[in-house]
């Protein structure tokens, strides 16, 4: 009798899978993703870096920098949700679709939408944080304010006052006084974004993406959320200033250059960014 019970328990354990894994679905618009097909895709495309357990310790991980994401802690950089909350399914779907520029994570756009939705479902199965834990509410981004020199100059003041320059450098070259000591949440060295590279951002390419990056923070990295410190109109001003740091043909840079040409005396009076 006792033996029978033990055998039944064993069968149940084996059937539920020896590793910790939680059944999951994903919802991206009208798409519904499932973890079973997601697992097959994961084993084919993702396991090499992210590992069979989803802990970021795949066989390639030792040669990859920055390190592959550890899905077991469910901490994600690119979210539409506040710092400390789970991302939405759409956020994870977008991350897989976009890939992570300047890292080893490519864009998985060649897979079908359904494939990527299934992968999202499977990625969520690695952490118990999704069991009963709802994603955060996506932050509200009000319509972008018009690009004006007053806003850019105010954004520049905020770049000084919020001390963005401590990591990103006075000119946004990623060389601030704290840049060399930064580590991610796994104690691996990490670099702040260098605006002079003009590359895409980790979490997108649009002004709205840039707004979202500093208002939600990149969890798992030193980049904090500034949502408690910046009002929406301030945040847009900061976005517009940050764009002037990139060597790209942007409206912001054009307005900035025009002002400096038209008002050389005023431009010269601007206090340099950095320590007093």
């Amino acid at each position: 009798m006792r033996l029978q019970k033990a055998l039944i328990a064993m069968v149940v354990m084996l059937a539920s899978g020896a590793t910790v894994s939680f059944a999951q679905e994903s919802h991206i618009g009208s798409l519904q993703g499932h973890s079973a097909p997601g697992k097959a895709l994961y084993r084919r495309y993702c396991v090499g870096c992210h590992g069979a357990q989803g802990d970021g310790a795949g066989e390639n991980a030792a040669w990859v920098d920055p390190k592959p994401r550890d899905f077991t802690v469910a901490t994600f950089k690119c979210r539409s949700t506040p710092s400390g909350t789970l991302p939405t399914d759409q956020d994870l779907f977008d991350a897989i679709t976009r890939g992570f520029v300047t890292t080893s994570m490519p864009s998985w756009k060649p897979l079908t939408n359904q494939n990527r939705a299934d992968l999202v479902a499977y990625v969520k199965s690695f952490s118990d944080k999704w069991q009963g834990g709802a994603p955060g509410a996506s932050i509200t981004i009000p319509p972008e304010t018009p690009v004006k020199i007053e806003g850019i100059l105010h954004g520049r003041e905020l770049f000084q006052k919020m001390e963005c320059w401590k990591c990103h450098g006075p000119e946004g070259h990623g060389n601030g006084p704290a840049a060399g000591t930064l580590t991610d949440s796994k104690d691996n060295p990490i670099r702040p974004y260098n605006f002079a590279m003009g590359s895409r951002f980790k979490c997108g390419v649009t002004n709205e993406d840039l707004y979202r990056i500093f208002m939600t923070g990149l969890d798992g990295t030193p980049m904090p959320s500034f949502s408690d410190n910046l009002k929406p109109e301030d945040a847009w001003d900061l976005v517009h200033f940050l764009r002037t740091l990139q060597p790209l043909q942007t409206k912001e840079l054009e307005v900035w250059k025009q002002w400096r040409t038209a008002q050389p005396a005023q431009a010269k009076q601007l206090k340099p960014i950095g320590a007093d």
Partner: protein
Amino acid sequence: MKTQRILSLAPLFILCLAVGSTAQAAGIGGKVTVQGTALTPNKTINMSSEPGCAKMYSTPPTREDVVVGSGGALENVVVYISAGAPDEASAPSTPVTVMQKGCRFEPHVVVVQTNQQIEMVNDDTTAHNIHPLATNNREWNKAEPPGTAPLTESFARPEFISVKCNIHPWMHAYFAVLTTSHYAVTGENGAFSLGNLPPGKYTITAWHETFGTQTQEVTITGNETAPLNFVFKR
């Protein structure tokens, strides 16, 4: 600097004493020490990248990974009842305050109950970010530029959370989130006291950020203060 720390811990001691003396109930008390090979002095913190903070100290402050007083008395140990006392039904409504002052977290070890608010104040003229590297709870990371209102946050699950300021890599604190109100943090003399306990069998845990945890069982039969000491080896 030392005086500063003692002053900031003073309310905690007064609270412990008050609980112990008014209730006239039994308790557990003792000392935490560290023994073994001679300790290397704590490393001096180099704050030269933040001159505003560096100039606040006549002698540079040291790291707090291991703070030892005379006779091996171990500071910053959280001693708490891990079993035997009922979990608290609700968190105290008063928040616990942690200061960022002179580019250090004050106190170094902050104890709260689950769902109790932690109020984080930036007293410096430089920006900080508060980054609790939680795993059982959710990790988050929020900026706190100078002159901004204090942040308040709480944690729903018990955990010893390492807290960083990434801008100032020497800044390090711990948030100890407990399910009990029966706890103490050792000061310079390594002493602790847990008061107001009815007779019963208790499991007491001592946690230290560098030396880990130890547990012991203690039985209180009457109105006595049961003696209990923890010795960490190094």
